[in-house]
C-alpha cells in the first residue's frame, strides 16, 4: 500500500501539460498598449472642448504677459508727457485709444513712425495697454504663488494629521476649525493694513513687489491652507481604510512604500484640482484688496487697482474700465472652467 505522507498535496499528472498553441498565445496578447492614469486623464481633458479652450486662453494670456513687456516701447511707469526741465505735457494725459500726444503728432507729421497707444493713456499720461499687461502679470503671479504656498503648507499639515492621527490629528483639527471659522477677508484687510506699516522692505529685492503683496502672501499662508489641509487629511484617512492598502500591508509592505505607491497617487488628482481652483480665489482676493487701495503700491499696476482708478473717472473715460475688467474676467473664467475640466478628467469618483 502506498504511504501518503502529504495527504493534501496535489497529485498532478505532468502528461496533461501541453505547450500552448499559437491560437492560445494570441488570445492573451494585449489588444492595445496599456494606458496610464495620467494618459487617460489627459485624453479625457483634451476631449473636453471648454477646458481645452480655457487652457489655450490661459496660455495665451500668460505668454503675452511675459513677452509683451520685452519689446513694448513704453514702460508701465513712464509718464509720456514728462519733459526734462519743463512742465509735463498734459496733452498726453487721458488719451483715447489710438490717439497721440502733441509732440508725437509732430513726429508723425515729419514722417516718423510712432508706436500707437492701443488703449490710450491714463490720467498720468502712461500707456494704458502696458499697464493692463503688467496688471494681468501681477494677478497671475499672485494667484500662482499664493496657491503654491497654500499647497505646500496644506499638504504638509494635512498629511501629518491624516497619517499620524491620534492626539496630533485632534490638535491640528481644532486649530483648523478655529481658523476656518475666522472671517478671512476681514482678517486679510486688517493684516494688510498692519503689515503695510510694520514691514520694512526698503532696499531689499522685495521692495519692488511692495509690502501689500508680501503681506497678502503671508496672509494666504496663514489662513488659506486650512481647507487644503482638511481635504488632504480626509483623503488620507479614507485611503488608509481601503482594502488595497490593507492587502499591501498584509503582504509586508512598509510605510514608505504604501505612501509612495498607494496613498500619493490616489491623492494627487484631488490635490492638483483643488490647487487649480485655489488660483482664481487668490486672484479675486488680490483684485478686491487692490480695489480698496490695499494691493500693489503705485506706480505698479494690478487689475484691481486699474479698475479702481477707472471707476474714479467713469463719467469721462468709461473705456478705461473695459480692458482690466475683460482681462480679469477672462482669467478667472478660464481658470474656473479649466479647473472643472481637470476635475472631470482626473477624478473618476466624482460624476457631477
Amino acid at each position: 500500500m502506498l504511504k501518503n505522507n502529504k495527504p493534501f498535496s496535489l497529485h498532478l499528472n505532468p502528461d496533461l501539460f501541453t505547450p500552448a498553441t499559437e491560437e492560445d498565445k494570441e488570445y492573451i496578447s494585449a489588444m492595445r498598449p496599456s494606458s496610464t492614469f495620467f494618459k487617460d486623464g489627459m485624453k479625457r481633458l483634451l476631449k473636453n472642448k471648454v477646458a481645452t479652450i480655457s487652457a489655450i486662453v490661459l496660455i495665451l494670456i500668460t505668454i503675452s504677459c511675459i513677452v509683451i513687456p520685452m519689446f513694448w516701447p513704453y514702460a508701465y511707469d513712464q509718464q509720456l508727457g514728462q519733459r526734462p526741465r519743463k512742465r509735463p505735457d498734459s496733452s498726453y494725459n487721458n488719451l483715447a485709444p489710438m490717439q497721440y500726444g502733441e509732440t508725437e503728432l509732430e513726429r508723425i507729421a515729419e514722417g516718423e513712425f510712432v508706436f500707437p497707444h492701443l488703449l490710450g493713456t491714463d490720467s498720468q499720461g502712461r500707456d494704458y495697454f502696458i499697464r493692463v499687461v503688467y496688471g494681468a502679470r501681477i494677478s497671475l503671479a499672485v494667484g500662482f504663488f499664493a496657491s503654491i504656498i497654500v499647497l505646500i503648507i496644506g499638504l504638509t499639515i494635512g498629511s501629518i494629521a491624516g497619517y499620524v492621527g491620534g492626539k496630533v490629528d485632534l490638535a491640528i483639527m481644532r486649530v483648523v476649525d478655529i481658523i476656518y471659522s475666522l472671517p478671512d477677508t476681514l482678517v486679510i484687510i486688517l493684516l494688510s493694513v498692519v503689515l503695510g506699516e510694520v514691514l520694512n522692505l526698503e532696499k531689499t529685492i522685495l521692495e519692488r513687489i511692495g509690502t501689500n503683496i508680501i503681506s497678502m502672501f503671508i496672509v494666504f499662508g496663514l489662513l488659506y491652507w486650512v481647507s487644503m489641509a482638511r481635504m488632504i487629511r480626509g483623503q488620507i484617512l479614507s485611503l488608509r481604510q481601503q482594502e488595497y492598502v490593507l492587502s499591501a500591508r498584509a503582504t509586508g509592505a512598509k510605510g514608505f512604500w504604501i505612501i509612495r505607491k498607494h496613498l500619493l497617487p490616489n491623492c494627487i488628482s484631488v490635490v492638483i484640482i483643488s490647487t487649480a481652483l485655489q488660483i482664481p480665489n487668490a486672484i479675486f482676493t488680490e483684485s478686491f484688496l487692490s480695489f480698496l487701495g490695499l494691493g500693489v503700491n503705485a506706480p505698479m499696476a494690478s487689475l484691481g487697482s486699474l479698475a479702481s482708478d477707472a471707476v474714479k473717472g467713469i463719467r469721462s473715460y468709461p473705456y478705461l474700465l473695459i480692458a482690466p475688467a475683460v482681462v480679469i474676467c477672462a482669467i478667472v473664467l478660464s481658470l474656473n472652467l479649466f479647473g472643472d475640466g481637470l476635475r472631470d478628467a482626473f477624478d473618476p469618483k466624482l460624476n457631477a
Partner: protein
Amino acid sequence: MSGKMLFYILKRALLALLTIFIVITVTFFVMHAVPGNPFAGEKAISAEAQAALEAKFGLDKPLPEQYVDYLADIIFRFDFGPSMKLRGRQVIDVIMDGMKTSAVLGLIAAAGAALTGVILGAVAALRRNSILDKFIMVLTTAFVSMPSFITGTFLLLIFSVWLGWVPANGTTTSGLILPVITLALYPMAYITRLTRSSMLDVLGQDYIRTARAKGVPGWKIIFGHALKNSLIPVITYFGPMLAFIVTGSLVVEQIFAVPGVGRAFVSSITNRDYTMILGTTIFLATLIVIMNLVSDLLYKVVDPRIEFD
C-alpha cells in the same frame, strides 16, 4: 430635542464664542503692533495735548491693561470706545448708523439671491440639457467669475451714467437698486448651481421613483419631495453667503456711495482711524461668526439624517 443635539449646539456655540474671543484678541494686539503714534499724521501738537489725547484713548496705560479694559467695555457695555478721527463720535454709533442702511441692503440682497437662485436652479434641473438649462448655466458660470467691483461698476456705467435710469448715489431708495443687484449676483449664481446639482441628485433617488410609480402628480413630487430635499445643501451656503455679502458691501458701498458700515470701514482704513478699524472688524467678524453658527445649526436641524459629532 435629544441630548446629543443639545450637546452639539452647546459645543458649536462655545466654538463660536472662542472664535469671537480670538478675533478680538488678535485684532487688538495686531492693531497695537503698528509702530509710531496714531496722531502723528495731524498737525504738530504740543506735549500736553499729546498726553491728553493719549489719556483720552487710554493709551497711557500698559498694553495688557488696555486690553482688559477694551474687552470689558465690549462685553459689559457693548462699547468700542471713541473714534480717533471722527471728532466726538463713538465707534459703535458710527457702526449702528451705517447698519441701518447696510442691513437693509444685505438682507434684501440675500433674500433675492436665495429666491431667484433656488427657482433658476430648480428650473435648470427639471429641464436638464435643454437650451434654457444651458443658458442658465452659462450665465451663472459667468457671474461667479466676475468680481463684484466689476459687475458693480458696469451696472453703474450702464444704468446710471449712460441710461440715467437710477441715481448713481446710494443715499436714496431708488439708488439702492443697483447695489442690491450687485451684491446678489454672485450668491444668486452660486445658489443656482448648488440647487441644480443637488436637485439632479435628488431626482435620481429611489423615493422619487417610488412616488412616480405610485402615481403622485408631478408638481407634488417636485414641491413635496424633490425641492424640499434639495434645499438642504443650500442651507449650508447661507453662512458663507452672508459673509460674502458683508465683505462685498465694502466694495459695493464704495462704488455706489452708500452710507453704510462698509464705506465707513473703508474710509477708516484710508484715514488710519485705528479704533474704528478695530471696532468695525470685531463687529463684522462677530456678525459673520454668528451667521455661520446659525446656518450650521439650521442645517443639522433640518436634515435628521445628519449625525452629530
